[in-house]
């Protein structure tokens, strides 16, 4: 009976309820968009960014003559100082080890390369990478490598697997006039000649396109640099950089330093990597992250304001709608009283109606708000950071937000209708049922 009453009376006074519902919808849309931007999307996009590229780069400490342009480190291939690939295992032991989502060591060197029939082979720059390398340990599974850390690379064919296989940068392949499946002769530093098969052509959009690319260990052999690595790109899940993140840990008080250390800032993780790997320097790669952090900060203040205003407006609209609704139905309320209905039961009927309205408005508002958040994210971060509308959409709907948003909608509806419901119950039933009422 209660449900029947609720259902039937819910569809009455449609215009008024539509208005109140719309107000709730707008309010929850704003709140959802705000919450999604402030929490979920920010978070998830960072995770996504980690997948979209490195945010920390590690290189030998002595090698400080780096020139960084647009996040790419340009350096002479004859650095002379190397990291040890075997030391990378130590990354499993750092505080934020679990936040490391990808790792790509690179060895830059040069080899001589020529066609099988042409003599002699000419020297070309070479790079060794991990491809599909198992960097997991007992606790975590992690298959990682160059293609994960450089998602914009386009590899035609397949990655080199061990000795005997080579991938050519697109420009190198062009100048050698060779394609996938062709066989070449490689001459290493120890003058050992090896025939190799071209398994792929790599387009990177940078200097790597001119290089001969090998599996890391293969190039270490040819270059006679066992265990050597020129640099390592790391992608880690990080907390957006804030003022605290930029602090120099060595100037902080011990307590503050602990706090800094235990937050997954890119800076803290880089610091931990420096600690773990002997002779290593590690730095945050500043891509979109920084600007992104401040934008989020800037808009979230505004969004809070808009959301609060929207919810307040919703509460006012609900209370206006409920006031007239209750006024129109005062004889109905009087009648229920005459049938012995307690105030609590009548109140619960009206509250349920308001609650239902809130749930409906809230659910739709949640949907629209999530889409809005996705739209805003795609707009703010832009395509170049790899966050297309599709990516943003995929992350916009956070189920954890739904109960929060519905809770807020319910609260607003209840707050908005309390005054009129109370006044309805204060009405004298004998007066409203009076003959001339």
């Amino acid at each position, binding site marked *: 009976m209660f449900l029947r009453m609720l259902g039937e009376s819910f569809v009455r006074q449609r215009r008024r309820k539509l208005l109140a519902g719309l107000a709730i919808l707008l309010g929850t849309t704003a709140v959802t968009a705000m919450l999604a931007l402030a929490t979920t999307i920010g978070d998830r996009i960072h995770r996504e960014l980690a997948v979209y590229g490195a945010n920390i780069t590690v290189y030998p400490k002595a090698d400080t003559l780096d020139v960084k342009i647009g996040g790419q480190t340009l350096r002479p291939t004859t650095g002379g100082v190397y990291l040890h690939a075997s030391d990378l295992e130590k990354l499993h032991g750092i505080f934020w080890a679990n936040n490391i989502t990808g790792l790509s060591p690179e060895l830059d060197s040069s080899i001589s390369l020529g066609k099988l029939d042409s003599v002699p082979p000419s020297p070309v720059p070479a790079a060794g990478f991990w491809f599909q390398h198992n960097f997991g340990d007992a606790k975590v599974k992690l298959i990682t490598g160059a293609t994960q850390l450089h998602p914009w690379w386009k590899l035609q064919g397949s990655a080199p697997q061990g000795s005997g296989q080579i991938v050519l940068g697109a420009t190198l392949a062009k100048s050698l006039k060779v394609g996938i499946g062709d066989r070449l002769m490689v001459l290493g530093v120890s003058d050992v000649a090896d025939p190799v098969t071209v398994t792929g052509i790599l387009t990177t959009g940078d200097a790597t396109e001119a290089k001969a690319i090998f599996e890391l260990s293969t190039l270490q052999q040819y270059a006679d640099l066992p265990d050597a690595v020129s640099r390592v790109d790391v992608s880690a899940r990080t907390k957006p950089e804030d003022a605290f993140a930029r602090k120099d840990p060595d100037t902080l008080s011990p307590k503050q330093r602990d706090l800094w250390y235990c937050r997954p800032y890119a800076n803290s993780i880089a610091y931990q990597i420096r600690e773990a790997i002997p002779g290593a320097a590690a730095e945050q790669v500043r891509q979109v992250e920084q600007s992104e952090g401040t934008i989020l900060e800037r808009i979230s203040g505004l969004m809070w304001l808009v959301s609060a205003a929207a919810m307040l407006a919703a509460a006012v609209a609900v209370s206006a709608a409920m006031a007239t609704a209750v006024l129109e139905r005062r004889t109905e309320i009087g009648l229920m009283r005459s049938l*012995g209905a307690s105030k609590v039961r009548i109140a619960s009927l009206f509250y349920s109606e308001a609650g239902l309205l809130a749930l409906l408005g809230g659910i739709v508002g949640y949907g629209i708000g999530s889409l809005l958040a996705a739209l805003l994210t795609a707009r703010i971060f832009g395509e170049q950071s790899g966050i297309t509308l599709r990516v943003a959409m995929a992350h916009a709907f956070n189920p954890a937000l739904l109960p929060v948003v519905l809770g807020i909608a319910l609260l607003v509806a209840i707050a908005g209708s309390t005054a009129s419901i109370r006044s309805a119950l204060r009405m004298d039933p004998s007066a409203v049922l009076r003959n001339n009422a």
Partner: protein
Amino acid sequence: MKMVSEAQRQHAEAMLEGAAPVIELLGVSRVYPSRSGVVHALNDASFTIGASEWVAITGPSGSGKSTLVNLLGCLDTPTAGTLRIDGTEVHTMGGGDLDRFRADKVGFIFQQFHLIPYLSALENVMLAQYFHSMTNESDARAALDRVGLSHRAEHLPSELSGGEQQRVCIARALINDPPILLADEPTGNLDAANQRIVAEILAELHANGHTIVMVTHDPEMAALAQRKIALSHGKVFCHPVSNVVKLSQ
């Protein structure tokens, strides 16, 4: 075999005990504040109504008839005096208890029916069950059948004639089998034919032992009652002694 209703039981008891009063007023007043002092809607009323009595309340407009009925139905509380209904001093009772008491003891029949417009006839009757205890569709249908409306059970009030609406209202009033029926001008909005139907239903309810207090302007209706209580300016000024004992013999 038919179940013995609460009203019938009371009726039987009343006959045994010699008409124990079901309603007792002792110096009951209801005063409304107004801009020019106060309005004595009901002024120092004292009388009793016996179980199973059918009483008509008459008087000019504004004499306090509706005020009296609302007091008897515990929709309103007296500003002074003692009001005892079915042995309970209701003027001392609080809101929640009054709601319960009202659901149990009285059924209202209104001049303008006060049916819920979006519920069917059947559901309007079931609403009274819902607020009383539990809904029971077959009981509700039986109540509609009793007022000759079983074929209109699924209709909305707007699809019913005035007379039919009033019969739904009566079915609703008696669905919980209250001992007391309060009717404020039950035929005020009805034509002669429908008035007759309602009168017949009330007569039947009276015969079944319900106590009926009926406000009416209509002398014909008033004549059906066993006793008249006349009101003027809030004062009860004429109430021939109860003849319930005489009649029920």
